[in-house]
């Protein structure tokens, strides 16, 4: 059992918020009923990426202690040191030694800038492209991707959210069928997805028929879309339960050395599960790592978090490359904002929220590695080149997948929305 960080999702929170977002529909059927198979989707550029693994650093990752150390002044770096990487002329923080060895696959986005300085609002903008409002829930990025590109494997969900608050993976106005299927503990896979041994297939069939005959009258008397949707959920769940692709959720099937490569942390195992799911055709996987809200004692807290990130991210890139999957899989690291260049002594050398300038990264999926886009000043406090908004980041993800990023989807309230609002893709990252 791995203890939770204060801003990390506990099992209890996962269950509570899941109960709210799923409205009485159990976990398994959330696996994406009646979502179109991607067979009809044609990317608008050749060799577009096929899947996305989005690593969300929840809490606001300090850019100066992780991704953006190049040419920064000593007084803003504090105890953090820069190391060289596998890409000539590029540096990373010494907190990410393994990732540094994968730098030739990575493009740093050092010009990130957001308008939101609070966690919930910042995460919302980063993962949904719109400002949080009281009147509507905008679909999560994964919901958009599945809506526009369909599923790659019709047996499996299109969107899986690992160690992620189900609210953050909610399909919003697109409905529950586009929500990310939540996985709390990567090692436990998809819960309650197998037929118990004590029930034979024949018995199971009999029970289903019985339930069906009891439901029939009700369904003829009361016919409405949400009841029909419920029915579809069940048929999808049954298909998943009986298909071989379910093993994509089971990281116990991975050899021990593979589990060790990714690190034994929950995040590392989540990255391993993400790779396995993408290999089985899941379109979008989010893995969340919390604990980045380092107001206090930044220089103890960041290295601890960075270790899990480093193990997981470096292993993921290495493993995807070895399997020849990296060109087809876009790996994105996002966070809601950065942290102050100023080190706050009275908070045991902490750093506060800093939306003005932060860093994210992209790797694989056709992205040129060993490069950076955007630049901050030497204090890491101001973007001086290549300003990139969360919407631009999401437009770039859409571009990588060959999606029509300006395709409008009208909400039930009659308003038009797009995957990245007014964001512009950074096409310079691609060949």
């Amino acid at each position, binding site marked *: 059992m791995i203890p939770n960080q204060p801003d990390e999702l506990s099992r209890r929170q996962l269950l509570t918020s899941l109960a709210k977002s799923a409205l009485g529909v159990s976990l398994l059927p959330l696996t994406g009923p009646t979502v179109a198979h991607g067979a009809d989707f044609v990317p608008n550029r050749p060799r577009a990426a096929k899947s996305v693994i989005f690593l969300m650093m929840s809490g606001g990752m300090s850019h100066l202690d992780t991704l953006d150390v190049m040419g920064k002044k000593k007084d803003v770096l504090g105890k953090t040191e820069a190391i060289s990487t596998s890409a000539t002329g590029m540096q990373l923080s010494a907190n990410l030694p393994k990732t540094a060895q994968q730098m030739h696959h990575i493009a740093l986005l050092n010009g990130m800038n957001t308008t939101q300085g609070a966690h919930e609002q910042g995460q919302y903008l980063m993962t949904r492209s719109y400002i949080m409002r009281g009147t509507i829930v905008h679909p999560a990025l994964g919901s958009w991707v599945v809506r526009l590109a369909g599923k790659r494997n019709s047996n499996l969900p299109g969107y899986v959210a690992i160690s992620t608050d189900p609210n953050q993976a909610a399909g919003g106005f697109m409905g529950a069928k586009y929500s990310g299927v939540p996985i709390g503990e990567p090692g436990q896979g998809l819960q309650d997805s197998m037929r118990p041994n004590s029930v034979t297939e024949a018995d199971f069939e009999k029970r289903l028929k019985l339930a069906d005959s009891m439901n029939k009258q009700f369904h003829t008397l009361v016919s409405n879309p949400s009841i029909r949707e419920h029915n579809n959920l069940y048929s999808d769940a049954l298909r998943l339960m009986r298909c071989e692709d379910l093993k994509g959720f089971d990281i116990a099937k991975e050899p021990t050395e593979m589990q060790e490569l990714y690190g034994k942390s929950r995040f590392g195992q989540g990255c391993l599960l993400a790779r396995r799911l993408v290999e089985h055709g899941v379109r979008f996987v989010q893995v969340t790592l919390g604990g980045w809200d380092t107001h206090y004692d930044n220089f103890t807290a960041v290295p601890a978090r960075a270790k899990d990130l480093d193990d997981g991210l470096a292993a993921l890139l290495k493993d995807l490359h070895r*399997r020849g999957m990296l060109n087809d899989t876009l790996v994105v690291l996002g966070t809601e904002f950065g942290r102050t260049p100023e080190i706050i002594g009275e908070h045991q050398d902490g750093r506060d929220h800093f939306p003005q300038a932060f860093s994210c990264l992209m790797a694989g999926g056709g992205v040129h590695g060993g490069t950076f886009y955007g630049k901050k000043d030497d204090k890491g406090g101001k973007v001086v080149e290549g300003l990139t908004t969360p919407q631009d980041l999401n437009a770039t993800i859409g571009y990588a997948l060959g999606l029509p990023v300006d395709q409008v989807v009208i909400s039930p309230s009659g308003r038009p929305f797009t995957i990245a609002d007014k964001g512009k893709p950074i096409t310079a990252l691609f060949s």
Partner: protein
Amino acid sequence: MLRLSLPSLFLAAALPAAAEINFRTQVLPVLGKACAECHKAPQKDSSGKVQNPKGGLRMDAPSHLLKGGSGGAGIEPGDPDKSLVYQRVLLPQEHEDAMPPKGKGKPLTFAETELVKNWILEGAKFGDWKGSDAATTAATAPGSPAKRTADPLAAGVTEAPADVLKKIADLGAIVGPVSTDSKLLRIEFVANTSTITDKTVDLLKPLAGNITDLDLSNTKITDAAMATIGTFTRLTRLSIGGTSVTDAGIASLKGLVNLDSLNAHSTQVSDAALATLQSLRKLKQVHFWKSRVSADGAKSLQKALPGSSVSID
């Protein structure tokens, strides 16, 4: 209060008797006359300069009207107070935001502004009017076909037979053009891979001239399927990772001169296959992790193929 509200109740009761406002025949002519000239899709003027819609607002399709421009939503169904299009035509002519601006057209009459208001109140229904929405999405997407030059590989490709495509899609495969402007096909067997065998690959024979991207990773194919694949002359990408393919299977690929990417991780392929691969001059990316290819073998292949990356890890 009571005395005032009674007559207005009668009035309210009398109004809904009127038929619902038709956008195309009633509202569109008003907006067309007063607004369309400045609020249309970006166009080049006579000097070749691109003219963008004023204020970022386009009024040539429902989606653009709803989305609005730099000031906010153009039309908010049911709420005239939040619909900028209605708000701006209400402003007095002297106001700097008044629409249409002075000298650009006649202000709307009271009857016309009431029509727009009531149409918004009724939910701003566009009926069958789609405007430019029907055509926009594909054409304006970044990397759209118009921006790219034709792919020489696609020359002479015939349309793939639809019945064959359907048969393969029914097996759970992703089958379709590699991109919106191409007749070349990508085929990925991702679902139910244990049921995908040499027989499945036989089904692809009618598509031999169309397939350019083929993913058979983790399927049950053998060297027999590789003989069929060897006839897919437009193949540029092939993934056979995690299959039981051997050197004999790779030998069947010697005619695939367009191949630029081969993924053969976790196979029985060894250094004996490298001679064949060395003759495929367009090969740029080869993956041999967990195969029997040696480090030296990988290095020599990479050297023999300029600009390539051959990896065993």
